[in-house]
């Protein structure tokens, strides 16, 4: 019966050069750059307001590397929207891409009707989200008051509503501190932050204002094993991973933070090759996916990095999209790029010789464990092609960056390249 699942006939068709799906920092920046190259660009976002996550992330810390200034999320979002529009990109909101009608053709639902967008190239910039409690398999009761940071910030910053008075934050990475800030603003005390790691993952490297005064107790090497409360949250049960001991922590709000998963529905619907680690579409140094003319940027391909990095993907991809449209994007097989444990993903996952460097000349990696000293080795076909001790540590919950120059000695006709920690 699923054959009847089709679209009703009378749809209007748009034919931009490039369709960008997602008006977050990466999509908006890609749109601006593409429009500046003289291309007809249509950005589609399902929200009523363009800007992506920063719209509701009402604290400072945005814009550092892409705009060379620091601003708060909503202002940053507005600026990126304005800049895309100024360059001539059309940004269409309340426009939800629901599926593919062809190789580079999208089905879109808007209040003005169903639209088909037949583009010459597509840039996927659909971002990432935090795994909810359900996907983390935390059992117990199912009361309201259990949510992700995304919902919390929407509630507080966009809808000006109250949350509880005592919160437990699950996770201790950058976004977790962002959640703590929001909770404080909403008059809710964070009574505990839990993390399975031996240290709170995020530290001074990132400027979270007021973090020092947040004074949140962090329980390392613990996990939440149960949520208690029939109609409202009453407590969580927390297990000490070392001893197995359990205790009950009374609270009325639980925020599940981090543990990112890309919003990859469209990528999967298209049958794009996926990166088994990040679960985002597999891309090469030009940020192209396995389908010709379909590119991917932002947190969809590296869940998650900061917004400026996502934005700079957008800047990076523009040139390659233009080359693709001009028929001059280098072809040829890519070399798989792999990462050994404790790394869980590496982006890009393919290196295509001749396609230039990856964004910012950096390879991005995500680690499950921390290492105070990062001795990085790169090997190919059993041969070590580079080794360096990088001046920044490896820590979970944050992207670890490796200069792409460490790959420059790779054999373009060789086998997979592996990045590991010595």
């Amino acid at each position, binding site marked *: *019966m699923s054959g009847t699942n089709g679209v009703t006939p009378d749809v209007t068709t748009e034919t931009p050069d490039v369709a960008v799906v997602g008006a977050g920092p990466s999509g908006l920046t890609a749109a601006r750059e593409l429009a500046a190259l003289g291309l007809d660009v249509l950005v589609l976002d399902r929200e009523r307001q363009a800007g992506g996550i920063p719209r509701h992330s009402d604290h400072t810390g945005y814009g550092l590397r892409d705009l060379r200034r620091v601003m708060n999320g909503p202002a940053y979002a507005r600026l990126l929207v304005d800049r895309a529009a100024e360059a001539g990109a059309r940004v269409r909101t309340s426009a939800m891409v*629901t599926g593919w009608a062809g190789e580079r053709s999208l089905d879109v639902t*808007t*209040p003005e009707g169903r639209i088909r967008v037949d583009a010459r190239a597509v840039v996927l910039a659909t971002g990432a*989200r935090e795994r*909810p409690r359900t996907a983390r398999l935390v059992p117990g009761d199912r009361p309201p008051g259990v*949510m992700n940071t995304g919902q919390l910030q929407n*509630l507080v910053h*966009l809808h000006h*509503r109250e949350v509880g008075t005592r919160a437990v934050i699950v996770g201790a990475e950058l976004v977790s501190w962002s959640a703590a800030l929001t909770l404080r603003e909403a008059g809710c005390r964070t009574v505990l932050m839990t993390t399975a790691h031996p240290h709170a993952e995020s530290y001074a490297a990132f400027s979270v204002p007021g973090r020092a005064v947040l004074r949140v107790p962090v329980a390392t090497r613990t996990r939440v094993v149960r949520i208690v409360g029939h109609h409202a949250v009453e407590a969580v049960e927390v297990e000490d991973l070392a001893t197995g001991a359990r205790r009950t922590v009374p609270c009325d709000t639980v925020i599940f933070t981090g543990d990112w998963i890309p919003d990859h529905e469209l990528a999967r619907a298209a049958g794009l090759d996926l990166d088994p680690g990040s679960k985002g579409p597999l891309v090469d140094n030009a940020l192209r996916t396995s389908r010709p003319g379909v590119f991917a940027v932002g947190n969809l391909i590296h869940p998650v990095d900061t917004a400026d990095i996502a934005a700079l993907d957008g800047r990076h991809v523009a040139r390659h999209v233009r080359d693709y449209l001009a028929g001059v994007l280098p072809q040829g097989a890519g070399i798989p790029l792999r990462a050994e444990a404790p790394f869980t993903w590496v982006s890009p996952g393919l290196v295509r010789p001749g396609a230039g460097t990856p964004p910012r000349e950096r390879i991005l990696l995500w680690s499950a464990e921390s290492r105070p000293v990062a001795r990085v080795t790169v090997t190919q076909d059993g041969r070590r092609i580079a080794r360096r001790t990088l001046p920044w540590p490896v820590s979970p919950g944050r992207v670890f960056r490796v200069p792409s120059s460490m790959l420059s000695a790779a054999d373009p006709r060789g086998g997979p390249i592996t990045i590991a920690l010595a």
Partner: protein
Amino acid sequence: MNTRQMRYGPLPVENVDVAVIGGGVVGAAVARALSAYELSVALVEARADVGDGTSKANTAILHTGFDAKPGTLESRLVRRGCELLAGYAAETGIPVERTGAVLVAWTEEELAALPGLAAKAAENGYERCEIVGSEEVYRQVPALAPGALGGLTVPDESIICPWTTTLAFATEALSRGARLLFNTRVEGVENAGGDGGTVLRTSRGTLRAGWVVNAAGLGSDVIDGLFGHRRFTVTPRRGELFVFDKLARPMVNRIVLPVPSSRGKGVLVSPTIYGNVMLGPTAEDRDDRTDTSTSEDGFAFLLEKGRKLMPALLEEEVTASYAGLRAATEHGDYQVFMDAGRRYLVLGGIRSTGLTSAMAVAEHALGLLGEAGLRLDAKATLPAPPRMPNIGEAFPRPYQRADLIAGDPAYGTAVCFCERVTEGEIRDALASPIPPADIDGLRRRTRALMGRCQGFFCGAEVEGRLRAGIARESGENGDTDQTGEAQ
């Protein structure tokens, strides 16, 4: 009857001809059936909504009854109920999909049990089962783990939307003049069958009823006790389930059943009408009739089962997990008894097939009540049955329908992205004859918030709309945060 009176304040009625206790799928079906006659009917429900108990948390299969115990009331009513509900679903737009099922044998012993099951199906009046070899099993379910030895196909097993089903019954009962009394828990019974009617003491005041039907599910033995009977005891048998991401749906095109054992139907893998895949349920006897929490043991058990049945499924994300409580009793069959003297009928012990059988149970109940002396004069005219919103995946949903959107842009404005629920559908649900009382009620009517993000993107927005809707409905000047991000 305005929707406020449904839920709040003193009872809007003092006397009715028939009170039906319990607004689950069974009670709602009974209220609908009774209200086709010249009778005043009240559906009395302790919770704030219909279908908020076991009827919302099951595996949502419209059973053929092929595996029922032949000769039981359950066997008969499941068979009949399946027929009735399939017809009613077509008439009212309750989402249903005939996926068919395949029962898989993993051991020689199970393989040997298949002919017996086919024979039992025939005894139950279902003749279309077929024994198939392992190649056919894998042709039907390629993602199945290796090691299946053979199977039994049941081509008419279907999946259905349990929420819309209960809501449709209650909506039609309402349109036929029945009263829906929510937040109304029956706490005491006096003067059972006596002159002036049975007195029901409830949490919202006293209700007198000429006749009483007990469809209180997990509470049916307690109500039975209030009428002076001690015929059965309900033991809540918990069933926990995982709902996997929609991206898993192509893996599972039909219901995959285990060979049943003495412990019950066992763990199945099934598509859901909303386009997900479900794994479960567990079966564990409990004491607490209100405890629908999920457990570590339950999860571990399901993961182990899932790994054995379909390892590829476990690669996908879990979108939701929940638990339902079956109203199991010490008896092997439904507990249906007419006490003509007290003008009282109990429909209890409807354990694991009540969604399917509800309409037949109602039909049966009408027969028993009629025999016991309840006058059943058909109403001269009845309103047309309701047309329910389509929240299933078998037919185009509003977001896909250019025709609908052209007439009303609200159907083109997605609010809950994962489930593609539009502003129009949320608005309609809030303005429907039985509006939702809370976020879970809105979810059951629209699917809003039941998707993979669990509210990350739209949770605040959907909740804002619900609040505004409820405030409007109850005439309060409440929070009118519906413009959402107007900043």
